[in-house]
Structures are given as structure tokens and as C-alpha cells.
């Protein structure tokens, strides 16, 4: 037992070419073959970045179309730029100097001779001016006509149109809001709760919910600032907020020959701050009748605005399955892959065909619901801070779990990529599917366990927790799920006694492997002749502050760990250097990730959450009990930046008295404004930054006396 043995180690292939990986990753789900005889574009420019640019290029490659990527200074080495046949520099990192600059993009189109442009989502995808500019130059816009963009882009106009098309709309007041008083007035007319958002903005950005007059004022102020900075248009919309709602949307597809159909629904109820986190298709909530009714209304709306290409009609659905039109997104939606998984339709392919003027080849009756698909949006965010505050960093290690069956991972990054503060902090869209919901969720669990992301804080702990949550598994969800289930914020997985022992046992085995190896010198001739190591090691594993004395033995084929009278047998055919450890504990499969080993501290990711385990020789813990604990330094009265961003405003000055909970400054990051408050009352001692400056995560912005 004294000597260190090399074990047969299972290795995940580490360095498969990322381009190959992308080319391969999801072809199998499509049932819409490419007709090579059908005329199509020779060259398409993708006016976007990241995963969606890669996603579009992938279909272009399938269709034999050449691709042109544009990249900003920050994206010089980005995957989308590497993947394209041609990549053109478009400008400095900030998107308003690069991906949003229409003239530069038009220049590149002329230079490269691209015949069509796919805008992806975000950036210029719902910009009617851009669509018009392209039309003027005779370049096809792979998306709806600008009339439809315009009609649906305005939330007020879209609602009127929807009403005319006999689509159910939300009860409430539609109107432009001029000031805070009017906002309060309107809110009172409608009755609380109300939702306040930017007229021009899409998605959840800029949406705020007010339950009283004060919140209505705050919501008006923050939303209008955000609307102005993000969209250059400070119009707002206030409407009735439906309690206990589900967010269910219909994917529609229309051609220029008058055909329109719906590709069934996606349920996107799991949201935080009105941004989607987990989506699935189909919805567990809809029955065939409701689905048909919703689909038909969505198609009716598309027809009403002469819609072509792919679009999404979003509905809010209440507990009685009444559904109300929310808005129509006139673009390829982030979460389109789950629809592709259940229908087999390559939506991008159909968008390109429609843009070329072809007729849709499928009928409504051809659209199946094949099994179930789930998508998790993997973000570079700290999920422990209001379910996700953006983080930035450098991916020091990155492995997508695409070696597992029925997993699709849409990403635009690779090992070594930088998640910068300039763009959306999404790392990838992890999609799994299966014959039914249960299988899809199981696959998701495994995929999340095997997903290796190091160097940036990410939200996998939260995703894993949602996927395994009994209420989510049962399908009883609404858009407030996270806030109802985690009223005090997300805390990470709470371990059961058995799980805690499993984590302790795994850490103990890693410790033992490391200790045995430490004495296994290859070139040392002064080792004693008798064995150096004991047969059994007495250690203490400290998990979540709880000391667990254990005895660990390494046997020929496994480890035995005895904790609290219970014996756990752990396999030993894993590598201490691997990112993912497939452990079998008492015959049961478990996946761990060893995040770091620093001294006695082993960080293990288990069921999504990272646990810090200290493993010490037993005598070290015995000795530690002889000494008093070192007092922890209390840090209070400090306001630190929770993320990297820029300071939009500072509302206090040195010497000023502040009350607990008072807003002291606002930070804008990733187009989100976040207000920071004082954690106690007191006098401001110093403010360390000025308005307009950039701050890094954890920078000390101000101190109280």
C-alpha cells in the first residue's frame, strides 16, 4: 500500500478541434434535407457575433453557402471569425462602434459581395432602417419585411394590430408615458401590479414591476434611463401585470407566397428579472386545443402584417389557460434550438430559403412534436447575487459536454476565450432532448455535471438546481418560480446527510491519492526500506463547516472511506488531473468536478454547486481544537461593486448621512442598471470613484465611517 500506482484512467478527449465539434454537433436532429438543386445565395454575411453567428454559419455550410463574419476588436480571435470563410474587421469593441454601425457593415457587404445578410438576434436584427438599407442595395435581409418589423417593434402599435387580428391582448392601458406622475396615474388606473418597460426594447431588458406608487416612480426612472441609453428612445409602456403567469411562445414561419405555419410552443417561464433562464418545448401545460388556438392566433397575427421568415409570438398564460398576446419578436429567437429538436425543422435553413423567395415545403400537418427538449442558458454570472449578476473573465478551461448523447451546445467561445464586459454574458445554450420530458431532464442533469467552465463565474449551480427541483420536475412553474422558491436568493444546493458524506468521501479519496503520490519519488535513493504510509489514514473532512472524522484506505481496485460508522466504497479509476471525475460511490454513479486543490482545501463541484472541503490529518483537527478560533474580520459599511461595469451615477457625497437600504450609486453593466444600497446607516467617509468611471468586480466604491 505504500507505493503510488498509476491507475487506468478514463480520459475525456480534450482537444478535439472546436470547428469540427461545431460542424458535428447537431446535424442529426434535422429532418429538413438540403435540396442541392434549389437555387440559393452564394454568400451570406452574418451581422452578429458569438453563438448565433456560429449557429447561422453552420446551416450555411450545410447548404453550401459561403459565409462572411464581422468582428470587433475584442472578437479578433473569436470562434465566429475563425469559422467563417471570410472575416472582416468592423470596429472597436463597444457594439455601438462595431456591430451596430450600419455603414461599416454595408461597406463590408459591398467589399465581399455578400448577397444576403442574416442578422441573428439582438444588434440590428429588429432594426427596420437596416432592413431598408439592405433592400436599397438589393441585398436580401434574412428576416421579415421592414413593415412587419416596424409594426411589431412598437409595443403599442403591435397590440392594436393584434386586437384587430382577433388575438387576445392583455387588459390594461396602452400609452406613452411622459413623467413619473403620469406613470403613477396610469398605474393607478390599471390597478397594481403593473409592469413598466421600454416601448422600443425587446426581451426582458428594461422591464420593471411596480406594486405601489413608489415603485412605479422608481420603475419609471430606471426604465426610462435604460431605454434612453440602450435604445435611444425613452418611450415607456405600462400595463397590467398578470399574476402567476406562464410565459409561452409560438414559433411561426411564413413565406412570401402566403403560407404561414406554427412550429408549436416553447415554455419560457423560468426567468429572473424577466430574462429567460430555462426553456423547454413543448410546454407541459398546454393541451392540444389550447396549442391549436394559440398557434392559429399567432399565424393570424403573422398574416395580418404580411410576415415572412421566422418569428415568435409571445403569450402570457394564466392558470386557467387563458392566453394573452405579449409581443412578437421579428427575428430568430435565442431559444429556437428546442423547437428544432422537437420538430426537426432547421429554422435558419427555412429563413434562408424564404429570403431567397422559395415556398415553404412543409404544411402545418407535417409539423410534429417529437419528444421533448430543454434549453439552459449558461451565463457568465454569479447566481448567488440576485440569481445572476454578470461576471467577466478568461476561460482557463472549457469543455462542452457534447460527447454525451442527445446534447446540443450552441456556443461561440472556446478554451482561452475572454468573456468581456462589452457583450451579452452568455456562454452557451445547452440543449438536451429525449423521448419524453423525464429523459430530456435527465440528460440535462448529466450534461450540466459534465460541463467544464473555469475562469469565470457561471450559473450552472442555479441551472442544476432548477432542473432537479421537484416543483420544476412536476411542471408546476410560472414566471416567478425563482422568487417563490428562493425568496432569500439562491444559496446553492443544500446537501442531505448522505450527499454530505459522499462529498466528504470523494475529497478524502483525492487527498489520499495526492498524499500517497507525494511520497512516491522516482529518483530518491534515501527512502526508508519500510513502508512510508500507513495502511489506513485517519483524517477529518470539513464540509460546510461540519467536521467529519473519517478513515480512508486505498485498496487494489477502490478506496474505502468510513465516516460515522458508515462505509463508502469509491472507485479509483479517475485521474486527479482531470476536470471531471466519474465516481462510483457504493455502486452509484456520481459526477464530480475537481475545481481546485490548494493545500488542504479541495473544491468539488457536485450536483452543480461548488463545495469547499478541507481535508486534514486527524491530529491537525485535534490540535486545532486546543486553540481559540481566529476572529473573522468584519467588513461593513462598505459598498463594493458586485460586478464590472461603469458607474452611471453616485447619489451621495462624503460627509452625507445615509440610511440603511438607501441607494448610493448605480452601476451599468451588460446594458443593465443596478442600484447599490448602503448595508447600514452612517455617514459617508469616502467615495473612491467618479461618475462615468469603470469599476471592476469587488472594487470599493464607497465607505461609511
Amino acid at each position, binding site marked *: 500500500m505504500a507505493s503510488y500506482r498509476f491507475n487506468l484512467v478514463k480520459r475525456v478527449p480534450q482537444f478535439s478541434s472546436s470547428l469540427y465539434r461545431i460542424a458535428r454537433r447537431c446535424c442529426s436532429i434535422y429532418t429538413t434535407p438540403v435540396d442541392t438543386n434549389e437555387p440559393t445565395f452564394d454568400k451570406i454575411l452574418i451581422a452578429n457575433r458569438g453563438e448565433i453567428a456560429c449557429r447561422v454559419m453552420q446551416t450555411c455550410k450545410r447548404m453550401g453557402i459561403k459565409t462572411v463574419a464581422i468582428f470587433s476588436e475584442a472578437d479578433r480571435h473569436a470562434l465566429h471569425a475563425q469559422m467563417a470563410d471570410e472575416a472582416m474587421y468592423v470596429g472597436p469593441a463597444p457594439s455601438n462602434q462595431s456591430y451596430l454601425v450600419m455603414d461599416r457593415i454595408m461597406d463590408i457587404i459591398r467589399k465581399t459581395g455578400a448577397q444576403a445578410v442574416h442578422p441573428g438576434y439582438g444588434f440590428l436584427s429588429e432594426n427596420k432602417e437596416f432592413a431598408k438599407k439592405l433592400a436599397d442595395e438589393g441585398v436580401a435581409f434574412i428576416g421579415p419585411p421592414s413593415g412587419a418589423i416596424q409594426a411589431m417593434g412598437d409595443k403599442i402599435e403591435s397590440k392594436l394590430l393584434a386586437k384587430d387580428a382577433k388575438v387576445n391582448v392583455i387588459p390594461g392601458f396602452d400609452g406613452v408615458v411622459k413623467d413619473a406622475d403620469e406613470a403613477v396615474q396610469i398605474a393607478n388606473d390599471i390597478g397594481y401590479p403593473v409592469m413598466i418597460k421600454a416601448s422600443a426594447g425587446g426581451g426582458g431588458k428594461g422591464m420593471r414591476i411596480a406594486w405601489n406608487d413608489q415603485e412605479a416612480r422608481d420603475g419609471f426612472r430606471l426604465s426610462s434611463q435604460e431605454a434612453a441609453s440602450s435604445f435611444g428612445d425613452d418611450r415607456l409602456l405600462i400595463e397590467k401585470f398578470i399574476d402567476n403567469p406562464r410565459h409561452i411562445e409560438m414559433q411561426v414561419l411564413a413565406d412570401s407566397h402566403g403560407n404561414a405555419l406554427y412550429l408549436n410552443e416553447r415554455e419560457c417561464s423560468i426567468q429572473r428579472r424577466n430574462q429567460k433562464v430555462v426553456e423547454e418545448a413543448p410546454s407541459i401545460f398546454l393541451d392540444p386545443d389550447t396549442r391549436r388556438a394559440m398557434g392559429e392566433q399567432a399565424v393570424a397575427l403573422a398574416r395580418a402584417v404580411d410576415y415572412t421568415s421566422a418569428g415568435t409570438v409571445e403569450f402570457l398564460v394564466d392558470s386557467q389557460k387563458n392566453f394573452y398576446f405579449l409581443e412578437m419578436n421579428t427575428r430568430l429567437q435565442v431559444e429556437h434550438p428546442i423547437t428544432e429538436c422537437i420538430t426537426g425543422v432547421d429554422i435558419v435553413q427555412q429563413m434562408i430559403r424564404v429570403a431567397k423567395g422559395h415556398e415553404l415545403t412543409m404544411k402545418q400537418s407535417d409539423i410534429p412534436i417529437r419528444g421533448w427538449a430543454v434549453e439552459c442558458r449558461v451565463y457568465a454570472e454569479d447566481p448567488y447575487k440576485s440569481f445572476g449578476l454578470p461576471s467577466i473573465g478568461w476561460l*482557463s478551461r472549457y469543455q462542452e459536454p457534447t460527447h454525451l448523447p442527445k446534447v446540443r451546445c450552441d456556443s461561440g467561445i472556446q478554451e*482561452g476565450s475572454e468573456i468581456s464586459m462589452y457583450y451579452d454574458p452568455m456562454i452557451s445554450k445547452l440543449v438536451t432532448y429525449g423521448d419524453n420530458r423525464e429523459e430530456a431532464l435527465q440528460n440535462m442533469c448529466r450534461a450540466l455535471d459534465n460541463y467544464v467552465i473555469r475562469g469565470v463565474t457561471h450559473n450552472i449551480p442555479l441551472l442544476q438546481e432548477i432542473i432537479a427541483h421537484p416543483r420544476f420536475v412536476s411542471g408546476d412553474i410560472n414566471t416567478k418560480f425563482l422568487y417563490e422558491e428562493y425568496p432569500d436568493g439562491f444559496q446553492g444546493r443544500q446537501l442531505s446527510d448522505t450527499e454530505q458524506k459522499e462529498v466528504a468521501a470523494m475529497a478524502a479519496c483525492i487527498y489520499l491519492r495526492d498524499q500517497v503520490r507525494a511520497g512516491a519519488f522516482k529518483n530518491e535513493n534515501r527512502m526508508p526500506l519500510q513502508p512510508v504510509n500507513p495502511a489506513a489514514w485517519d483524517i477529518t473532512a470539513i464540509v460546510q463547516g461540519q467536521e467529519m472524522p473519517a478513515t480512508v484506505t486505498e485498496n487494489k481496485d477502490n478506496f474505502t472511506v468510513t465516516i460515522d460508522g458508515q462505509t463508502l466504497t469509491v472507485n479509483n479509476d479517475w485521474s486527479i*488531473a482531470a476536470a471531471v471525475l466519474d465516481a462510483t460511490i457504493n455502486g452509484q454513479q456520481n459526477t464530480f468536478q475537481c475545481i481546485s486543490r490548494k*493545500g488542504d482545501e479541495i473544491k468539488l463541484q457536485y450536483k452543480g454547486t461548488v463545495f469547499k472541503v478541507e481535508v486534514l490529518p486527524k491530529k491537525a483537527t485535534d490540535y486545532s481544537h486546543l486553540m481559540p478560533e*481566529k476572529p473573522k474580520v468584519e467588513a461593513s459599511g462598505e459598498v463594493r461593486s458586485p460586478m464590472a461595469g461603469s458607474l452611471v451615477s453616485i447619489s451621495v457625497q462624503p460627509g452625507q448621512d445615509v440610511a440603511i437600504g438607501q441607494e448610493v450609486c448605480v452601476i451599468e453593466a451588460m446594458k443593465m442598471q443596478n442600484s447599490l444600497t448602503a448595508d447600514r446607516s452612517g455617514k459617508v467617509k469616502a467615495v473612491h470613484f467618479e461618475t462615468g468611471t469603470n469599476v471592476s468586480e469587488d472594487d470599493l466604491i464607497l465607505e461609511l465611517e
Partner: protein
Amino acid sequence: MAALVKYSRALVTFSKNPASLSLLRAGCPRFCSGDVMSASVHDRIEEKRRAALLGGGQRRIDAQHKKGKLTARERVDLLVDPGTFVEYDMFAEHRCSDFGMEKDENKFPGDGVVTGHGRIHGRPVYLFSQDFTVFGGSLSSVHAGKICKIMDQAMLTGVPVIGLNDSGGARIQEGVESLAGYADIFQRNVEASGMVPQISLIMGPCAGGAVYSPALTDFTFMVKDTSYLFITGPDVVKSVTREEVTQEELGGAKTHTTLSGVAHRAFENDIDALLRLREFYNFLPLSNRDPAPIRPTEDPADRLCPVLDHLVPLDSHKPYNMLDVIQALIDEEDFFEIMPKYAKNIVVGFARMNGRTVGIVGNQPKVASGCLDINASVKGARFVRFCDAFNIPLITFVDVPGFLPGTSQEFNGIIRHGAKLLYAYSEATVPKITVITRKAYGGAYDVMASKHVKADINYAWPTAEVAVMGAKGAVSIIFRGDQDQAKKEAEYVEKFANPFPAAIRGFVDDILEPRMTRQRICRDLDLLSTKKESRPWKKHANLPL
């Protein structure tokens, strides 16, 4: 006599159970034959041992614990492999007869220090651990003699020495004898220097002349909040210079690891320090006649590091973290950094490549652009010389814009101190592998293990720029008065801001894709493991001090 040795081995496992003592006696008929004298000798032995194990007594032990410190014996117990400690001179007592010291109650077997040898992960080590519970750990001539004894043996056998310091200073009652004791230790520290690694772990006070022993050893580590190092304490400072300063500010771990550079690292508490020391010990060879250790690793030697391909920003003004480069390349991200908080513009520390211990030196572009200043030069030089003395190959990562300009640097002797690093690299005969990641400008390029100071293998990443200075500075000199500086600058960049000028001349052996770096270094280390280089005989060289 043989029985005695056996006896002591069994006892030094610090069993607190008196039953084991009587058990041992029962197994030893020679002492239990009924002979009255023997029995009484035996009782005395037993009594002395018991007293030695208790040090200054339970009350003082409790006080030691209350301060957050372990006792001398507890520390030894944690540091060495279980059951391997063999103690020397447990019965040694001071011979001082002044000031009432001759009284029995003022005699403690062991006299305030536990000495002996043990094993760390199987390899031998000599160690001493000062016992603060006996006369505050003060150093008597006997105490010093015990330390000298193990140091002498360490040198004879080629085994490192670890000192656990926790002492109030000289045993004042002994006067000059105590001072002589210090000097005896200093002399041995110097003689052992470069022969066996010497490590000091400061775990309590260490003041006055006593500080010079740790200062002479290769590495000085400290425990946060409970250890102090200073020549004179706050009281004397106040009376001489009128400065008000606390112990912690004057000589605490933070001061010495961030400001003075006296200590190489600080640890959270006694337990953390001792366990980390075990880890650290594993990087070192036992003596200058032993090779640097090799141990198994599960990290493949041919692992590619694509993560490094775009780590270095194209804009040469943008910083990146050299630690990211190091972590990506070494085995299992296991880097033991030396002086992590001092002169942060240079990173030094130990790591393994394919299981072999290597010493890593890297400029840190994140701090002060990675320039070399006085502190960075001295920090680097000391580390390079340690590695060279103990057969540890050196891997150097270069991104250096030059030496730091300024009056404070010049007035404080950057010339003299910068020369130390140049000297250390030029003198080193261990395998030297250099990777230029970006800037290698001016004299600093020469210093940082360039081909010209006999580095064995030099690589440049595609982002490397080897030049006399940055483009802007160069152009303003070459084309002084020329209107079109920007154009000339672009020309200069085109010509020099790339690895070719150096590669053409053979000053770098290859231009290497960053992802290949680990693979190549691992192979180079295999190849260079038989490197033998000797310099002409001399008494010793004359390092600029």
C-alpha cells in the same frame, strides 16, 4: 545503550498515556532486575522524560494554546510523518548558576528546544523546534549546542534543516555564552548554505540577534498574527527614534511579506503553516549532491495548451496575468509561489513539469508593466541562486519593458541591485529554458536568461518583440526631428516588434506556438537532465552586494 535508543524512539511519539511507559519498563528486564540503584536511575530517566515532554508545564502550555500557538512538540508532530521523529538531547540542561538559575525548579530537561530528525513524505529532515513554554524559548548555550549538533549532522548526511522559531531571544542570565551560541548557529547556517536547504518557520517572537539565523537560511516563512521578526522591539524603537509602532506593524507577517521582503510567505496559523511546509519540502532536493525530485504526475507531458494561444493581448500596452501562463503550463496547476506579495512585478516559485521540480521566474505585466526594479531584481536573484545551488532547472517567462527609471531607483542603487539578477542568471549552470512571451526590451532582455547569459533553450512566442526599446522611444531617437513620427513608428514596429530579428540571429532557438510550450519544455527538461557545465575554480565569486 542500544536499549536506550529504542526507548527514546518509542517515547518520542509523544504518548500522553503513562501506561505505555510502564509497559515499556516491563519489556526491559535490565532495568527491572531489582537492583535498587538501577531502579532509581530508571525512575529518574522516566521522570526526566516526562518533564521534558511537558516543557514548561501545563499552565504555560495552556497559555501557549490560548495565544493560538501550538507547543514545540505538537508542531514537530504535525510536521513529520507519524512515528518518525527521533529526538536528540532530551536530557540536556543548562549549566548556568547565576541569578538562582541553578535551582532545580529552574531546570528543564531539553532546555527550551526540541531537536532531532524525522521524515517528511518519507524523506529525512533535521529539525529544531523552540519551546516558548521554557524560559520563553530563550537561547542558552546548551540550547544553541543542541541546534548546532543537528546542523552538523545535517551537513554530514546531506539532509535539509528546518527550524521552527519561537523564542524571546538570548538567555540573559547566561550573558556572553548565549551570544556565543547564536554565533555558533550563524556560522553553521553559512557553512550549510548551498549544501543543504535550510528553512525557517517563524512561529512566535524572533528578535534581536536571533533574527540573523532565519535571515541566513534559504527560506523564511511566518505565521500570521502570532509571529514577529525585528532587530529591536517597539519599546526600544520608541526610546531611540520616538516612533510609535506596534509589534505587528514593526515586524509582523504582513510587514515582512509585503514591505521588507524579509519573509517569503505567510500562513494562516500553525497548522496551516506546518502542513504547507510539508508540501513545500516536497519540491526540494535533499542537498546540493541530490537531483531535484521527480514524482509521478497524472498531467500528460504532451498536453497542449490552446488556452494560451490568445492570452497575450496584441496591444502591447494591455496587461495580462503571467500567473495564468504559469498555471496553464505546469503540472496540475500546482504552483508554490515564493514572495507572492512582495515585488509583484516579478513572479517566482516552484512547480513541476512532467513531475520534475522546476523553478519558475516570470515578469508580471499586470504589475508595473512587469518592469525590473530594485526589489524585483533582488527577489529574482535570490530565487535563481537557490535553484542553481540545488540543481533545480529554471524556466523563465519574459515580458519586460526594461528597468524602472527614476531618481528613487537610481539613488537607491538599481545598478547595483539589477546587477544581482544579471549575475545570478549568468552564474547559474542548471538547465535554463526561456520563453519570451512579449516584450524583451533593452538590458532587461539580456538579464532575463537570454541566450547571451548561457540559457540553454530560448523560445519566442509569435507575440514576442525583442528590441532595444519600444517603438515610440526608438523612433524619437533615430528619427529625431522627423515630422512623420507615426509612419516611422509603424516602420519600426514592422521591423522589430516581432520575433524575427532575434530568430534570424539564433538568439531564440525557435518561434513557438503558445499551445506547444508545455510539450516542448517537458521534452527539453528530459534532454537537459544530463547537462554538465563547470566554471573555472575560484574560492568564491564576488556577487555585487
